[in-house]
């Protein structure tokens, strides 16, 4: 082989190897040959993006949930920790007792079968086949004057149910008619 032939071969090999004289394949594409379509995200990248979005949404939801929970534990609009710092241990006992009282909204109790005459409120619902009887139960637990409300349900299938509701935490918009009754009695003032 002549020296100039050898030089030509080496030069063409260098072109193929590319910059830095790295070993490369002979059929490798040049930079200019790469189409713009290849910039589109691959399916793996797509799924990664969507999972990232999902996790961000979840994170936001969690943050909102914690924020709501923290607001729920506020008394008088102040965060619980702040109250704890300001009130000290003695006052915190009262606050905790108050929170504990508010926690359980209802508990099932044995049916007493109170007559209409002893009830604070009676609701007759012929179309749905039941009668609700409610009566304030015992002395009020706090200065709000709302204590426990005893609610009894008599159905036309022979079923009897009775619950004690915490008048202060019973809800007007509850889906349960017995709880709504407890709310009505709690907010009705003195005996009807």
């Amino acid at each position: 082989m002549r020296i100039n032939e050898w030089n030509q071969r080496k030069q063409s090999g260098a072109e193929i190897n590319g910059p830095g004289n790295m070993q490369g394949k002979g059929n490798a594409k040049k930079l200019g040959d790469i189409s713009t379509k290849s910039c589109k995200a691959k399916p793996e990248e797509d799924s990664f993006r969507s999972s990232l979005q999902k996790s961000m949404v979840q994170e936001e939801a969690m943050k909102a949930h914690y924020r709501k929970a923290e607001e729920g534990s506020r008394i008088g609009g102040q965060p619980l920790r702040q109250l704890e710092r300001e009130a000290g241990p003695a006052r915190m006992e009262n606050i905790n007792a108050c929170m504990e009282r508010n926690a359980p909204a209802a508990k099932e109790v044995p049916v007493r079968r109170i007559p209409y005459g002893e009830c604070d409120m009676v609701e007759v619902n012929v179309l749905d086949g039941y009668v609700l009887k409610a009566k304030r139960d015992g002395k009020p637990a706090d200065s709000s004057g709302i204590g426990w409300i005893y609610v009894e349900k008599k159905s036309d299938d022979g079923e009897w149910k009775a619950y004690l509701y915490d008048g202060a935490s019973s809800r007007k918009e509850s889906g349960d008619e017995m709880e709504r009754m407890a709310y009505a009695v709690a907010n009705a003032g003195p005996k009807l």
Partner: protein
Amino acid sequence: MRRNKEKEAEAPFEKYKDILYRIAFSNMKSKADAEDVVQEAFCRYLKAEPAFENENHEKAWFIRVVINICYDIQKSAWFSRTVAFDEVPESEMEHFKLPFVEEDETLWHVMALPTAYRNPLYLFYYEDYSIKEIAQIMELGEGTVKTRLRRGREMVKERILYGTGGKDRSLMDKASKEGGKDAD
């Protein structure tokens, strides 16, 4: 002798006159008729001189007698020919007051039901009787009382939805044939 008997009847009369009047009114739909029925019930009490085990037994006896007297009057030839027996006339509504429950439209629909359904529904919802007590008063099985309560409720619903004509009328006629006197 008669004076002594009358005095004996005074105590139960004072105790039960209101509830007996209400039950009689729910059946007769008229103040005058209801008062006559209550009076007749106490006449029967004085005549029969029944012995009662307890106060509940006594009350149940009076209620049963009142219901039976109403039924006897309603099935009489004169009554069935002369009185259009269905709804409580508006002029009579003012003579009926429930002590603990507010009167509403449903009450008048209950009173317009056939006897077999009217009495269980009225006693259950407006006089606070249990199914067991109603069964004892009307001498029926508890299952029968439950069935009548359910059917009666359906009839009231239909009365409210469709009024007193059409579909409801046929249901009422069917019910009347099924259950006549309460103690059946």
